[in-house]
């Protein structure tokens, strides 16, 4: 692999066909150039360029004071990032895999999320934490999990998950400009499988908060995010062949959630399916279902269905069974459509 023309690094200008990984690299480079206070810290993010090469080239471009290799201590990485943010810097901390975020759980939940509240706005810690999440790469129990629900349950955090190349760039840039802490979960299954044309002359900021209507439809609403979006698109294609018009809502920001977009879509289609990789019990799908039940139960023509990972730890060899696929999503779409 050479430094020029890799699928991870994008320092080209103009319209460039790039992977999601290159779009993330591009967003980091652009924000570091724009704001001297943006620093990156994490395990092997410097000379090595990160385990997936998301920070490739940045160490050489911005130096070791802006791209900081840390010891293997997730709690310390997030704690140090909080301190830097308290002092007015804009740290972007990388947790190598979302599965390893749990040693930093106390720092994120008890510290990062609560600084603004516990000091009545006197201290803020607008840290961005990037972490590759999700399955489909044969990563097994500890390189595949989707921990978003734990963090959506914590007031004071924003949780963002892109599903497209342009959203990855635009949402990450927006996250780095936020005054609030943002957990930016990256669907690693899509890192290199998606490519798109990005006009780097365009700022391309995607605001945190609003959902994206990935496909307009009239019969069934499917709510999803991250690596499940292409799976739902495949299922929707099959449904279309059977005469079912599917609307796909890519939530993009899970906290705070775009409840207005959810309700608007359900009122239009009267049917809802929710898809996520994480286990069903206590998953974010339950929250979406509750929002629909509270605000739009009168417009439903069928029960709300969830297509999710199973209530098991994430398996290694059976991940293709565990992960929602187009078949399972398609069956749920059929079921809510033909419900009587």
């Amino acid at each position: 692999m050479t430094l020029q023309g890799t699928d991870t690094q994008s320092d080209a200008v103009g319209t460039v066909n790039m992977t999601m990984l290159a779009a993330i690299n591009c967003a980091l480079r652009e924000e570091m150039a724009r704001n001297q206070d943006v620093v990156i810290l994490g395990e092997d993010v410097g000379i090595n360029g990160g385990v997936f090469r998301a920070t490739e080239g940045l160490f050489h471009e911005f130096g070791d004071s802006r791209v900081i290799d840390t010891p293997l201590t997730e709690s310390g990485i997030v704690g140090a990032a909080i301190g830097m943010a308290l002092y007015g810097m804009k740290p972007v901390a990388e947790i190598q895999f979302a599965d390893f975020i749990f040693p930093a759980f106390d720092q994120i939940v008890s510290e990062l999320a609560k600084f603004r509240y516990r000091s009545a706005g006197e201290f803020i810690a607008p840290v961005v934490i990037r972490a590759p999440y999700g399955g489909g790469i044969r990563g097994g129990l500890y390189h595949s999990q989707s921990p978003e629900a734990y963090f959506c349950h914590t007031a004071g955090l924003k949780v963002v998950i892109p599903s497209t190349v342009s959203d990855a760039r635009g949402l990450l840039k927006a996250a780095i400009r936020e005054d609030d802490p943002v957990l930016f979960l990256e669907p690693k299954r899509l890192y290199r499988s998606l490519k798109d044309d990005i006009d780097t002359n365009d700022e391309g900021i995607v605001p945190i908060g609003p959902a994206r209507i990935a496909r307009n439809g009239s019969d069934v609403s499917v709510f999803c995010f991250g690596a499940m979006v292409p799976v739902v698109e495949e299922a929707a294609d099959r449904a279309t062949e059977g005469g079912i018009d599917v609307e796909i809502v890519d939530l993009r920001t899970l906290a705070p959630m775009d409840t207005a977009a959810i309700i608007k879509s359900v009122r239009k289609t009267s049917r809802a399916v929710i898809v996520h990789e994480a286990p069903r019990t206590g998953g974010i799908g339950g929250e979406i279902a509750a929002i629909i039940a509270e605000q739009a139960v009168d417009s439903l023509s069928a029960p709300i269905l969830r297509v999710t990972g199973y209530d098991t730890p994430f398996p290694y060899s059976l991940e293709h069974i565990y992960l929602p696929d187009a078949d399972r999503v398609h069956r749920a779409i059929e079921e809510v459509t033909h419900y009587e």
Partner: protein
Amino acid sequence: MTVEHREDTELATQQLEAMGRTMALDLYRLLRLTRLVDESITEMQRAGTVGFHIPWTGTEATTIGAATALQSEDWIFPSHRYGGVALARNVEVATLFHHALGTSGDPSLGRQTPGNFGHAASKIVSISSSVSARLSQAVGVAHAAHLKKEDAVVLAYMGAAATAGNDFHAGLNLAGVLRSPVIYFVERKGMDDAPVGTVAPFGEAYGLESFSIDGSDVLAVQAAVVTARDQLIKGGAPVLIDAELKGDPLQRYKYTLEEVGGLSASLLQEMDDSLAIEVEAARDTALASLPATTETLHQHVLSQESSKIEMHLS
């Protein structure tokens, strides 16, 4: 470096002379004020007026000695027993009572448990109840100051129990690797208070310089922190201070002032009496204040109120 227990009076004499009468007396004022505020809050806690309080009597020398050795641009991560830090940074006495009572005059609007005091204007960081979590944050603040080329250091207080916590080790490790200008200040009551009897070897293991001092001698504490700060500003290794509490710091300094400084007991008594009146007035001000209004419950969760919050309000 070891700053020995000050049995002789030579160093004390030198320090008092260097400080001058006004500063020497002000140091006494802060020690006494810290003691009086603690006694008053403790009394209210026992009467049920204050919900929670971890007393800090006996820790005045570490609190005041370290805080007065720092400069105004330095940041402090206090511990639960370090209300006196606010007094050393000229926070109004009443503010500590507002905090203890959780009134609208508390910097946290009554959200924090009493003892978890923070004050941004004084660079006293708001702490949580997790005793080691702040220790990795401290290295982040220090490293940011270093990256911005600003002459500020960070001092993070802890009791010896915090040395068993994850972020004590994460913080010291990061501080050693990044060589950040941070002082970790451990206070312990004796050999049994720390997990392995002493804490100084932890500093050495992580590449920090360790100082062992008498934590009941305010002049020794002050001297150690001044030295540590000077070394850090010159680019020296981060510092771990192991301060053992050996007696009543207030009586000890009072004795030094009388015996070495030649100040009269009646002068100090006058100061005590006037401080007691000041503390009582501050307490009464806070007692007459109202708690934060219900509307504040939803403020400061995020930079802007989210739709989720609005929904719950409806």
